[in-house]
């Protein structure tokens, strides 16, 4: 059943790929608008082999890495702290719930004014895009730890630290992992989108540069690279999550 679904999924992607390929070749999609996917792939390989984009790719991945890891660590810590303080939570809950309705990109120019045109505003944008997903999912995970688990730890005379390490964290792991998954996607969006707006380097900057220079080959190659990176990371996380949920009996 599972393998059949996977085959069908691949078939859907391949069909889309072939359709665009065919439409581009017969001229229904003009080349100035889009090049065929096969040419994108060739352009991407050439770009990677030439190494001209390596510094930009590394810069983007580094910024995403810093934004993401700080969002995960601080988001988890903030979630755990807020969870232990119910009064603070009742004050903050509406802010968390409405956070993603605020277009945080409006603050990007402000961060550039404060920190200059360097990696810091980009990292802040990635961090701000990711951190609240982590906080919300940490809260969800901790809310869902059954009370009976906490009672069980008291029967085993476990102290607070051991209770957290051996019971609370594993019990909340599936939800916390969902937070990590969302944080990854949001950090990518935050950093690359900010690079698009104003930046001196990175994948987003290069895609934007190629767009304004009518350099379709490089633009689509870099878009394909971004999609490939996000897809590989998401598939890896999805596989881990599936394993975790299967073990927990939730899938």
């Amino acid at each position, binding site marked *: 059943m599972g393998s059949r679904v996977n085959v069908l999924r691949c078939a859907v992607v391949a069909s889309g790929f072939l359709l665009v390929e065919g439409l581009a070749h017969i001229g229904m999609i003009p080349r100035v608008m889009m090049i065929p996917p096969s040419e994108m792939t060739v352009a991407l390989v050439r770009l990677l082999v030439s190494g001209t984009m390596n510094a930009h790719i590394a810069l983007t991945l580094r910024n995403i890495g810093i934004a993401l890891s700080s969002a995960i660590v601080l988001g988890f810590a903030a979630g755990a702290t807020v969870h232990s303080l119910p009064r603070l939570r009742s004050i903050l809950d509406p802010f968390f719930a409405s956070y993603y309705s605020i277009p945080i990109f409006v603050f990007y120019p402000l961060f550039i004014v404060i920190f200059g045109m360097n990696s810091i505003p980009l990292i802040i944008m990635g961090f701000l895009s990711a951190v609240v997903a982590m906080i919300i999912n940490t809260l969800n995970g901790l809310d869902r730890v*059954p*009370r*009976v*688990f906490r*009672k*069980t730890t*008291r*029967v*085993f*005379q*476990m102290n607070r630290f*051991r209770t957290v390490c*051996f*019971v609370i964290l*594993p*019990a909340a*792991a599936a939800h916390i992992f969902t937070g990590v998954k969302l944080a990854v996607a949001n950090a990518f969006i935050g950093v690359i989108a900010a690079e698009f707006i104003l930046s001196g380097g990175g994948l987003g900057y290069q895609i934007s540069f190629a767009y304004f220079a009518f350099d379709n080959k490089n633009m689509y190659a870099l878009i394909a690279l971004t999609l490939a990176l996000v897809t590989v990371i998401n598939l890896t996380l999805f596989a881990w999550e599936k394993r975790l949920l*299967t*073990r*927990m*009996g*939730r899938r």
Partner: protein
Amino acid sequence: MENAHVVLRNVSRIYPGGAKQPPVHALGPLDLQLSAGEFFSVVGPSGCGKSTLLEVIAGLAPASEGTITFEGAPVEDSVPTGVGVVFQEDASFPWLTVEDNIAFGLRRMGVEKQEVRRRVEYAVDFMGLNEFAHAYPAQLSGGMRQRVCIARTLVMQPRLILLDEPFGALDQQTRLLMGDELLRLWRETGATVLLITHALDEAAMLADRVGVMSARPGRFIETVPTGWPRERDSRIVARPEFGTVTGRLWSLLREESIKALHRGK
């Protein structure tokens, strides 16, 4: 009572009220003495404070008044060593295998690896979980998961086992069979057992004595001795005396259950 293992004197539990809610007098005042190696069941109407009684005895919740002693030492705000608790809810940890679940408490207490393995193997065998030792709780039925929780308590070699409606979520046949296993465990360990249950037949089949509680605030109306021999199992339900015991329990409980029902409306 000589060789009293657990003693409750004048124990009551009052849940403090909130800004707009009055305090709730959940339990007592009540007295209870359990002798070492006794199997004692508690029955009572819904909401009478049975689970509160268990939590107070276990040290999971403080008594508002009165004293509780286990083996002569006062029970206050922590679970004393030698006390095991099996809860009504599934408390098996879904991220651990059956074996790791059973070994959980032993490992946290730093018991030597070989001793952990020996006790876990015994408990797995005793509870009939051999085939599922490496399975995760999600792969087991509700009854099997409860067996895992009982095994996890068993390996700690408790001298007092407190069970809060452990078979509440199981079907009648499984409950009877689990009752047999519980009786076997009780005989082999020699532990004192206190079982909270809402099922009169379960209480009557398993216990040496059954404490019948009133509607909230729960107090003991009467303690009914069953008179069963120590060697017994679920076949006891076919004996005429079994009907007499359950009949007696129901006659004591009926009025209290009606009171609780009307209060709940």
